[in-house]
């Protein structure tokens, strides 16, 4: 198990490097840079722009250096000092801007995984055991709709229903009265009560996929002879199903967490923008629109890195859950 862990960590290094390159590439791609955007904005407002001031800004941010020097300076600062650079837009350290928001994003993603598993496992089992029942068809139908509807659209519909029928307008995750207070029970409860809607919206597509996977796997398992054996030896039906086939069917389930994560992170970004939650989504969009390069790059880098870590955890979970995979990987190492 330890060898596996070490090997996976070593694998992560080149991937992280690639992610950092891609993030930096995205930062560099747009023609011009923040300063040109800034100047354009100022002249659009009819203000004059001081050339010496521009030069000073360019000097300060090293915008005239070769690209790889800029990259090395950027990644060096992150690795050495956790310094993600300055946000041009907010005139603040990027690191002070992102961590709060990323914290909420991670909380949202985790809650979404927990909720979609909590929904998908019982529903998947039900749909497989009662195949072709009305309930099965209803869940399949809802699942397909959930799959096919863009989640920003779901968010819009939820917002509309909440507004039209409950007179509630969706605010942020933290209600205004708790905005400045320290974390206490009241604030936690408040956050939880505001969180359920985004969690449900982000989780729909993922849950629908999971239900279908679990249902298909379980259907395959239920036809196997060992199930008949278990039944023949007189086990109660719920034990027959839960003890063996469900366990077997869950295995591919765990391995899909790695794929679900990028979707959830993406969904979280989209839904947060629609619901204007205080997570990474709206800030990332704003940063990209304004070419606030360090801020946008930091978000993409950190989201990518966190997704990698999540995938690693899911791989380890799978090895722990399924002895066959554990042994196969140990032999490989």
């Amino acid at each position: 198990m330890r060898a596996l862990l070490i090997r996976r960590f070593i694998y992560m290094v080149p991937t992280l490097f690639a992610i950092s390159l891609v993030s930096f590439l995205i930062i560099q791609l747009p023609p011009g840079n923040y300063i040109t955007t800034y100047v354009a904005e100022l002249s659009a407002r009819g203000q004059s722009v001081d050339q010496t001031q521009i030069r000073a800004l360019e000097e300060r941010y090293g915008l005239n250096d070769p690209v790889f020097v800029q990259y090395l300076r950027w990644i060096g600062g992150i690795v050495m000092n956790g310094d993600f650079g300055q946000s041009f837009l907010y005139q603040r350290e990027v690191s002070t801007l992102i961590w709060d928001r990323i914290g909420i994003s991670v909380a949202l993603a985790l809650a979404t995984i927990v909720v979609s598993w909590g929904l998908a496992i019982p529903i998947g089992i039900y749909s497989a055991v009662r195949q072709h029942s009305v309930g099965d068809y209803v869940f399949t139908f809802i699942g397909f709709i959930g799959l096919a509807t863009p989640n920003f659209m779901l968010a819009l519909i939820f917002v509309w229903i909440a507004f039209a029928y409950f007179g509630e307008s969706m605010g942020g995750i933290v209600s205004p009265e708790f905005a400045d207070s320290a974390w206490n029970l009241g604030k936690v409860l408040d956050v939880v009560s505001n969180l359920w809607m985004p969690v449900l919206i982000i989780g729909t597509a993922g849950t629908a996929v999971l239900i279908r996977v679990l249902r298909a796997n379980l259907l395959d398992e239920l036809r196997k002879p060992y199930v008949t054996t278990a039944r023949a030896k007189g086990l109660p039906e719920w034990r027959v199903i839960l003890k063996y086939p469900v366990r077997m069917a869950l295995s591919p389930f765990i391995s899909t967490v790695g794929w679900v994560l990028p979707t959830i992170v993406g969904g979280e970004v989209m839904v947060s923008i629609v619901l204007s939650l205080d997570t990474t989504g709206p800030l990332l969009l704003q940063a990209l629109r304004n070419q606030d390069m360090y801020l946008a790059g930091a978000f993409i880098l950190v989201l990518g890195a966190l997704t990698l870590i999540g995938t690693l955890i899911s791989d380890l979970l799978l090895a722990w859950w399924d002895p066959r995979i554990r042994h196969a990987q140990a032999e490989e190492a």
Partner: protein
Amino acid sequence: MGLNLPLKRRPGPADEPGGAADPATADAIAAASQWRLIWLRFRRHKLAMGSLAVVCVMALIGLFCEFVAPTTPGEYSAEHTHAPPQALHFVDTSGGGLDLGFYVYGYDSTRDQETLAREYTVDESEKVELGFFVEGTPYEMWGVIPADTHLFGPENPEDRMYLLGADRNGRDMLSRIVYGTRVSLSIGLVGVALAFVLGVVLGGASGYFGGRVDTAIQRVIEFTMSIPTIPLWMGLSAAVPREWGPLTTYFAITVILSLIGWTDLARVVRGRFLSLREEDFVLAARLDGCSRSRIIGRHMLPSFTSHIVASLTLAIPLMILAESALSFLGLGLQPPVVSWGVLMQEAQNIHSIAGAPWTLLPGVAVTVAVLALNFVGDGIRDSADPYQ
């Protein structure tokens, strides 16, 4: 993650195509080509057949959108900002009796003194007669052939019809959604075509050569799949310069979508290659002295074309979803280009949705298209291997 998970094939009660009871059909089946067998099996999926019809209708609408749309997408009317959808009437009871008709009622609009928003009531005294193949706003078919005949619309070109309501500039939502069909569907097709080239070349190389090439390509695929797609897409499309023309932007966005969307296809192709490489007929071909390209093109490719077609069909809805998400954020296609995602920009905030819920309708079009394409893809995948 995509919608196209490798779901297990559900063995139906009667998997033999056509049911082999009748000896005549049995002979016909024995002599049928592979594609005929696939079609025979596909036809038994009711849902997939229905969805195929929906997809075909949508494709036709996209192809002939100028003719199908009652008006042009840019045709605006300051009198009809956010006009609600009109009900279509086929039976006329106004004269006391039951007469057949084809009309909508006009609007009475008043302006709210406080909010300055227009408020509409149905004006039953004003009837807008509708008809088929009517003259209306002139357009250019496919941008070249000038015409002014529309599939249906008001008999009097001066009248207006808003079956799905109007947007904030009084433009007809139905026409805009119809025009959006062309862009949204074609972006899915073109994007999948590009992703297909990447996926087949890289996945094929990976599966055929194996070894180091395989490892390298697999790493690239794993890497691409491990980054959150939406932020990556957002980043790349934010880099598309705003000054670019509509057509260039369209292609830039398609390229971006396919750059990230090729991985699933590559995995399918590689998996097929790996399993076929070991087959006896490939060995036989090699022993016969066939060249490598002949083995791939003549012997291996035909046996997994159907699987590729299924994967391609399942990849189109992903592209459509991605395009609508990007355009909705304002990072994808830009107005005046009309795609479903661009139309959703109208529904950006709660005030426009609360005031005009029909601005959400382009999203319904997305859902229907994605759902139908998914069912068709599932159907093809289930019938992809007719010799089972």
